[in-house]
Every structure is written in structure tokens, then in C-alpha cells.
């Protein structure tokens, strides 16, 4: 007898493509609605694309032109971070921004930014003189004569934000699939999404694919500016230099970027950078660092902060900003294809704007679904998700490095003896936190690193990698040589003595 194979592909209300800040934020917002939702990420883990090099600044919003989406969403997003960080119990510090000038005549530029900022509804802006500036930041160069002070700017840990949003979305019922690259999308009654591993149906598709936003748009035949890469190199100082600056220090911006900054990151280390290097289309995934970028940053930073010590640098890396060609703004909203939405071209201030964008996109999607009668309009089932989110919060792992009191240390150990094993000595990360990261979905060393800070300190993994691989191999029940830095071929171990790898 002939048997006909019938395969039922999983069907969703909304599929979000891209597991960066924008994609996970949208997923999180949608997870509060009675929808069946899926997020697809092509890399091995969330936050492995554009977001992985994000400097974690929540900008005040005076840099942006009020007529642009960047201007519209920046201050709005900034304000939302107080609420969101409280709700997710994420550390967030409003450290403030200082836009510094080196000549008296540049005060006019400060006034212009202040005007822009006020149009964008940035609060608390103030122009200060050199005396006030050096009172706030005593280590800054004497040559700096004044600044625009924006107290609302802050710093957050962008990875922690993404993984927390993902955890909340998951506990509200969202599905997240990683290592699945979208290869093609077709549309008839609904969307058919073909990935490197499977096939899905959906009523709505949201393109939040970062550097590949244009590729996804092209699959739907939606005309979109090409996404170009603008590379930024960043360098990190040993955390013992924490406190050298307390505010985020900006020079006057260039047409390309907000300039080379000095950033007191949330977790302590000071970050220097980024550069702004326009890349050729073929090089938009080139995340290499080079001597030129390093020297450029050092020169610019030393001008503002002569006390900087190059020997204190512990790491350098690059990130890529997705810039829509000749557009210079975000691309957000519906498209020529009904049910296909976009949130792409997210460069600075993308992280800041993300909560505001996510709320708007979720609203658009929800309206579209009910207006086109694809789903019945339902109210947020708020009690249900509040309960789930409360449960999620209770299971957020504690951090050993944040426990200062002896009695609390003892309590932490009693709650789980694995808090007693310090795996990463530089950043004080315990075995309990590493295990929690793996159970949260980390399958790679970078996944554990981004979730816990393991290996981010001064020895850069020289001491902890050995133990981390051992723990990962046992927790994931795979041999050591399967553990990788960031997925695919990035393994650490190539052979085991006395054993044949298959």
C-alpha cells in the first residue's frame, strides 16, 4: 500500500527573524499578547550578531535630529529604561553623559545640541564650564573648557538585557530557535519560512535581522536600502581602573559617528572607542581589529583623558553598525507586503530606542492581526503573565561578585554549594552561575561568557577556560572537542589522546 507522507510544519502567529536587541525586545513585547510566537536566530546564540559589540550606552538623545526616527525613539526609549530595568530587575545606572569641548568657540555647538535635545524632550540638559566639568571629572584634560551635561544617559549590560528579555519571553510561552538561518520566505495565505533546519508557517513576519536585514527584505521583494557595515573597534581597560571617569565622555561628533568615547561600563571596566570605518559590502562581517584603529582611539582618548594607561588594556574587539545606504535612519514599520514588518538599520542609538520601537512594532502587529481578522482581538491576559514573570524573576541566578557581606556569602553558599567554587577569578564567577548560564541555553564559551562575564577579565580566559569546558561538556553531555567558542568550527580541542573522534 502506498503511504503518503504528510508533514505538518509548525505554525505561528508571528515569526521574528533575528535574536539581537531589537528582535528579542519585540519578542518580549509580543509575549504579553495571546499569540503563538517564534524567534529565529542564525547564530549559535542570541546576541551573537550586531548586539555582541554594543557598548551598553543608554543615550540621552541630544545627538539626534528631531525629524528622524532616531530622534523620535531615543529619548522615549531612554525614559522607558527606568521601568523596564526595574521590572526585569536588571542593573541600570544613569551615570550621565558629558559632551566636552576644547575651545571656547565650540560653545555654540553645545547650544545647538541642547536645542536638539530639548526638541527631542531630553530632560535635565545643562551647559557647564570648565570648572564645573573638572569638578565632575577631575581626571579629564585641563584643555577641555566646557561640556553639555545630560544626566539622563545611562549604562546597561546589553547581553544581560537580551538574555533576560529572552527568558521572560520564553516563560510567557515564546519559542526561540538558534542556529537556524532563514534561507527563503514565500507568501500565499500565510508566510512560509524555510530555514537551514526546517520550515515554519506564520501569519506575520518581522524582520529584525541586523546586518542581514536587506537580505531578508529582498526575500520578500521589499525594496529597502542596502545595509552597509560601519565598523567600530573598542578597547577595554582592566577593571582596577574603574572610576577614572564616572560619566560617559563624548567629544563633538563627526558626520560618521558620535566620536570616540570613554565609557564607564555597568560592570566596571572602562571602554574606549569606537572607531567609525565604512566597510565595503563584501566586508560587512569583517570584525577584525587593527593597529590603525587602536592608535586612532588612543590618540583621541589621550587628548581627553591624559591619565589613560595603555598597559591597562585587557581586550580589543570590533563591532559592526548596520547603516542603511543613503538613509541614515532606522527603518521601522509595515512594508509593501501585508504582514511583513521591519525593524532594521539599527545603529546608534538602537539599544536606547529598542524598548520604544518594540512597543510600537508590537502594537502595529497586533492591530494588523485583528484588523485583517487573522486573530480575534483579545485583551492582554495580564494576570497570567505577571505570575509567570514573577516566577521567572525568582529564578534569576544571583551573582557572587555582587555579594559583599560575609553573612550573605554564607547564605549564598547554603542556597547552592556550587557558589563556593570560583571558576573565573578575575570576574569572580562561580560554578553555580556557569551552570545556570548553560541551563539558560548557553551552548558555547561565548554564550557562557556573555551571560556571566566569565573570561572577560584580565586573564582573558587563561585560567577559567579549562574548567568551563569540563563543566560544559558534562552539563551538555557532549565530549570536550564539541565545545566551541561561538559555534560552527570554532572548537577549542581538536583531538583527545588515546581516543578517536568520530
Amino acid at each position: 500500500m502506498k503511504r503518503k507522507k504528510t508533514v505538518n510544519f509548525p505554525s505561528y502567529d508571528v515569526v521574528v527573524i533575528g535574536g539581537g536587541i531589537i528582535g528579542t525586545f519585540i519578542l518580549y513585547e509580543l509575549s504579553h499578547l495571546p499569540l503563538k510566537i517564534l524567534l529565529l536566530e542564525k547564530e549559535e546564540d542570541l546576541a551573537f550578531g550586531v548586539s555582541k559589540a554594543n557598548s551598553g550606552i543608554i543615550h540621552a538623545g541630544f545627538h539626534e535630529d528631531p525629524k528622524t526616527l532616531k530622534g523620535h525613539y531615543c529619548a522615549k526609549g531612554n525614559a522607558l529604561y527606568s521601568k523596564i530595568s526595574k521590572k526585569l530587575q536588571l542593573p541600570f545606572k544613569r551615570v550621565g553623559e558629558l559632551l566636552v569641548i576644547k575651545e571656547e568657540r565650540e560653545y555654540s555647538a553645545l547650544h545647538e545640541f541642547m536645542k536638539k535635545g530639548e526638541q527631542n524632550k531630553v530632560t535635565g540638559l545643562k551647559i557647564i564650564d570648565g570648572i564645573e566639568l573638572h569638578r565632575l571629572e577631575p581626571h579629564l584634560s585641563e584643555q577641555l573648557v566646557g561640556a553639555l551635561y545630560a544626566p539622563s544617559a545611562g549604562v546597561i549590560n546589553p547581553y544581560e538585557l537580551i538574555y533576560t528579555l529572552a527568558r521572560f519571553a520564553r516563560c510567557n510561552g515564546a519559542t526561540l530557535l538558534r542556529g537556524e538561518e532563514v534561507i527563503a520566505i514565500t507568501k500565499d495565505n500565510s508566510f512560509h519560512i524555510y530555514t537551514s533546519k526546517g520550515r515554519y508557517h506564520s501569519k506575520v513576519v518581522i524582520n529584525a535581522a541586523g546586518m542581514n536585514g536587506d537580505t531578508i527584505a529582498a526575500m520578500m521583494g521589499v525594496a529597502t536600502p542596502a545595509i552597509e557595515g560601519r565598523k567600530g573597534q573598542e578597547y577595554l581597560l582592566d577593571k582596577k581602573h574603574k572610576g577614572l571617569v564616572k560619566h560617559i565622555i563624548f567629544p563633538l561628533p563627526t558626520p560618521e559617528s558620535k566620536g570616540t568615547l570613554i565609557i564607564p561600563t555597568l560592570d566596571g571596566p572602562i571602554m574606549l572607542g569606537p572607531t567609525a570605518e565604512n566597510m565595503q559590502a563584501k566586508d560587512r562581517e569583517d570584525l577584525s581589529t587593527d593597529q590603525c584603529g587602536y592608535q586612532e582611539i588612543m590618540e583621541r582618548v589621550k587628548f581627553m583623558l591624559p591619565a589613560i594607561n595603555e598597559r591597562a588594556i585587557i581586550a580589543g574587539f570590533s563591532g559592526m553598525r548596520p547603516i542603511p545606504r543613503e538613509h541614515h535612519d532606522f527603518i521601522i514599520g509595515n512594508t509593501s507586503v501585508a504582514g511583513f514588518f521591519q525593524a532594521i538599520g539599527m545603529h546608534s542609538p538602537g539599544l536606547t530606542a529598542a524598548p520604544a520601537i518594540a512597543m510600537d512594532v508590537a502594537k502595529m502587529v497586533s492591530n494588523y492581526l485583528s484588523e485583517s481578522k487573522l486573530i480575534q482581538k483579545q485583551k492582554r491576559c495580564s494576570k497570567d503573565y505577571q505570575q509567570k514573570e514573577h516566577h521567572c524573576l525568582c529564578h534569576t541566578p544571583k551573582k557572587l561578585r555582587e555579594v559583599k557581606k560575609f553573612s550573605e556569602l554564607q547564605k549564598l553558599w547554603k542556597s547552592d554549594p556550587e557558589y563556593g567554587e570560583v571558576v573565573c577569578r578575575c570576574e569572580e564567577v562561580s560554578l553555580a552561575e556557569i551552570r545556570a548560564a548553560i541551563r539558560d541555553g548557553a551552548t558555547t564559551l561565548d554564550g557562557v561568557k556573555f551571560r556571566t562575564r566569565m573570561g572577560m577579565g584580565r586573564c582573558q580566559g587563561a585560567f577559567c577556560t579549562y574548567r568551563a569546558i569540563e563543566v560544559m561538556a558534562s552539563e551538555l553531555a557532549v565530549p570536550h572537542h564539541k565545545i566551541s567558542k561561538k559555534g560552527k568550527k570554532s572548537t577549542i580541542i581538536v583531538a583527545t589522546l588515546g581516543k578517536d573522534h568520530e
Partner: protein
Amino acid sequence: MSKKAQLLKRQAHKGHVSIIGAGPAGLIAALHIKKNAPSTKVTVIDREIFVGGILNQCIHPGFGLLEFGQELTGPEYAAKVSALCRDFEIEFLTETSVLSINKKLEVVALSPKYGAKKFQSKAIVLCTGCRERSRGALHIPGDRPSGIMTAGLAQKFINIDGLVPGSRVAILGSGDIGAIMARRLTLQGVEVAAVIEIKKSLSARPRNVIQCIVDFQIPIYLEHTITKIVGRERLEKIKVAKILSDGRADFSTEFEISCDTLLLSVGLIPENELAEMAGVALDAKSNGVIVDEKFMSSIPGIFACGNAMKIYDLVDHLSEDSKKAGESVAAYLTAPLVEGKQV
């Protein structure tokens, strides 16, 4: 507990020495404190399961000629020293990390076995060893693939667990660990494609240069540096160039070496984060603890020896100094009290 017992306990604690690190420096210091001040309570704290520190992963011979008059491997040397310790009542707290120390000589430690512990010590001896320079500290430009690690990490992988970190390896720097790893990997069937050294000569001890690099005909590139790391996932190749007299790379001489692994052996930095936490003065250049002739740091009662104080080439020399350090700590502890202060 009776009042008298409480008093006795307090006094016992008063004579307490905390030694941080159970490598050769810590073990030998402990031994000689106990020999010279037998009533002192000595606690040696180490984060690892076994004592012996880095010696446990140094399975090659060449240790002990001066100290024991015979050639030993690292683990044998460690075993000999810890056997000597067994004759004395020394407390070992393994799998225990010291989280902080301060100038009041309080030590806070944490272990999965018994949680947090606090010691009020009469003396602390820092034997925290050293770490290797990382890629970030060396500013090696390029991609960030896997396959780049310190020589010490590679040594731990292969010697402790039999995990081979690569199939074609280049080594940057020519320190002793790098040289020893060149031989170790070659003997394991791994191809060592290059040893790249920025200086005019190899920095390993002559014996290691000959026995580990020259004898195995490993290509040596003196006065060369790495200009770029290439590889998105695993390391694919490195770009190498000659250096000019001012230390910068001469890009006209740039060439490529294909390799899937790069080991870094470019010098050691004393690991002194705990010392710094207590406010102990460190040498600005070497990061070693600055000590006087009695191995005491800038803070009275805090001593340092071994690689945390200065980087040694030979464990035998380290042991000799650590013995002296142990003796001075004992002398410090047993010195008569004058007006409540030690002289």
C-alpha cells in the same frame, strides 16, 4: 565553651598564619614556618583540588637538581615537597578561593565544601604565583577566532586531560613554557610551524632552546611579530612581519603562516590582585610585590614569595628563596613583644 577555653582559642588564632597558594612557594614557606615556629598554626589555602600548583601540569623533567640533587618532573617535585610537609601539622584548605584580604590581616575564603570562612591571621604569606600575558594585553590585531590561548592553558589541556588543542601550531614568544610546549606538541604528533620572537634571541633558558626547539628543527623567526590574526571561526592563519628598529612591523616583509592554533608565551605577570586589594605596594613595571630583605611587603605582617614577588626561571631558586621567606615569617611571629608591638 568555658571562658578559659575561649581565651585559649583566641590565642591560638592569634598565632595563625594564612598562606595563599599551595604551589612550591606556599608549600616551602609553610614547611619552614612550621620548622622554626612549631606552635604556630599554619593554613595553606588553594583553589585547586591538589596542592603543587602549576608544577602538576609540568610533566617534563628538569626540576629539583639544585634542591634535591636529582632530576625530577614537576609532579614529582611537588610530591616530594608535599611529603616533607606531611611531617608537620599544616592545615590544607584545598578547593578554596581567597576572596579578599585586608591590612588588618583578615582573610575571607570561600569553598564549595564548607562555604565562607574568615581568618584573623597574625601573618599572611602571598604565594599567588603568576599569569601569562593574554592576546588583549599584547594588542595582537585581527579576527577573534578560537584556537588562540596561552601556552600554560594548552599545557594544562594536554598534560592533565590529554586534550590536544590544535593540529598545526604557531607559538608567539619564546618563554620557557612556549619552548616546552613546542617539544610536547611535536612529540604528540602536532606540527609546530613557527616560534616567533620579537627580540634578537630566544628568551627561554639555553637548555630549553636546544632541547625543545633547535633539536626538533622548529622554524624560528627572530625579530618578527604577528601583524594580523585571520579566521572567523577557528584560527586559519597568521600574518607575520619583521620588525623595524623602532619596534613597529615592516609590512613590506609580511608573510603568512597557516595554523589552527596560536600559543602565547610572551612573559609572565605576578598575580597580585589580592595584594592590591589590601593596599600592598607593587612594582609598577613587573607587578611583583615589593618586599624587604625579610620578604615583608609594605604592609606589616603581609609577606610574599615565589612568582607573586618576582618571576623565577627555575623552581629550585624559587624554593631557596621561599625557605628564607618561611624562616623570616617564623622569626616575625616568635619575636618578643615590646609594648604590644613586634620588634
